[in-house]
């Protein structure tokens, strides 16, 4: 059991555009080797009021990158005199990821809303490419979702449809990927602002061969215990 292994967020992260904004979703598991170091982590980090980033890969690298970008964007907003656009935020992330590609191991999805372009999603995988997409998936759990999205994604969804799609997709990935788990967190960003939602693990739908939550032995303290045998 190597508790000194660097923390990685095995992860499933998703960003989806809908008509009016974007929905970002992620699981909540941070693992050190096979031990789950944090089962309720928040992988969707704020960069500005209207731009958020989903982090995957090395926990340390992604935290440092998002801290730097938040700092640069804050300065940029002051200098510009108005909220930063999603494109600028994504490009700042991309510059850090590309120029330090030998040192960093993190895949990011930047999503947000601005008044010029509306809702936009930018995927920035390992290596530092930037690619603007109507939807993006990342992390180890995303391998199980390519087929799902090919079939389920459509243009012009409503906010609720988009959020349900994201929750369903993350829960499917959690069911199949050992490095993803915990709860599903979503962030909806549109012209009205930002809404954070939380879906606990036991409220997610059950998929093929998944069992109902069982009676837990931890509930025993409330009962007096088995009767001792009489001799």
């Amino acid at each position, binding site marked *: 059991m190597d508790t*000194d292994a*660097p*923390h990685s967020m095995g992860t499933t992260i998703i960003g989806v555009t809908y008509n009016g904004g974007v929905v970002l979703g992620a699981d909540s598991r941070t693992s050190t080797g096979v031990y789950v170091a944090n089962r309720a982590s928040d992988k969707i980090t704020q960069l500005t009021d209207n731009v958020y980033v989903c982090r995957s890969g090395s926990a340390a690298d992604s935290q440092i990158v998002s801290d730097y970008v938040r700092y640069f964007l804050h300065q940029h907003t002051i200098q510009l005199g108005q909220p930063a656009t999603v494109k600028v935020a994504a490009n700042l992330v991309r510059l850090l990821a590309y120029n330090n590609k030998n040192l960093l191991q993190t895949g990011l999805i930047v999503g947000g809303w601005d008044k010029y372009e509306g809702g936009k999603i930018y995927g920035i995988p390992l290596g530092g490419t930037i690619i603007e997409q109507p939807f993006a998936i990342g992390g180890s759990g995303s391998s199980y979702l390519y087929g799902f999205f090919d079939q389920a994604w459509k243009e012009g969804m409503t906010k609720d449809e988009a959020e349900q799609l994201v929750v369903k997709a993350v829960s499917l990935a959690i069911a199949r990927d050992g490095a993803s788990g915990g709860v599903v967190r979503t962030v909806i960003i549109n012209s009205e602002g930002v809404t954070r939602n939380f879906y606990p693990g036991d409220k997610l739908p059950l998929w093929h061969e998944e069992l109902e939550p069982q009676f837990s032995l931890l509930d025993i303290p409330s009962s007096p215990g088995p009767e001792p045998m009489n001799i």
Partner: protein
Amino acid sequence: MSKAEVDFPPKGEFGFDLCKRNEMLIKKGVQPPSYRKTGTTIVGLIFQDGIILGADTRETAGPIVCDKNCEKIHYMAPNIYCCGAGTAADTEAVTDMVSSQLQLHRYHTGRESRVITALTLLKSHLFNYQGYVQAALVLGGVDVTGPHLHTIYPHGSTDTLLFATMGSGSLAAMTIFESKYREGLTVTEAICSGIFNDLGSGSNVDVCVITKGHKDYLRNHLLPNPRSYISPKGFLFPKKTVSWTLNYLQN
């Protein structure tokens, strides 16, 4: 004398001759001295208006316990303490360094230090050293924004949690927190489960309770491993042994 000049590099730069000598010795089969690790169980939890930090007190050098009663809860600021697991030198050095930086910052700003300041200083230092500074920390304190508890890993990532465990005994301690956290303060139980189930942790329990404006540093709060037999004769040393007393400085 010419011999003195050979010992010091002429321009006052770093001399790496001893590194080459060490490599040569290792090739010849000499064992390098092992690091003193704090094998450790360290925990923290947030309760109503404050935080509690707990730690065991065993320090090991390989399989030997070199200090049965060391202090793993380090002072950072009057309202912030930090438990450290990993290489003892690294945890001591990093917590001392950030504690001094925090004090300078307090002089500059004229305000009480915030936990998140300590967090950022520690995390950026550890990230810069890419995990080579082997310090895994549980940082906790109460400041104007409320009680905060963070874990910091050697590579520089941090987590913000309601309850946290670190160190080799973290798995044993986490089982206690996961099953009983809702029912109230169980820090000493968590530390004891680490002490009794993990070989790298042991001896006594230190607890530190921090609330707004007040802290209780309970050194050796529990001593569940007393020395059971002490020979009345004491130790017998051969006649020519020099007697040596250890002076222990404590604030």
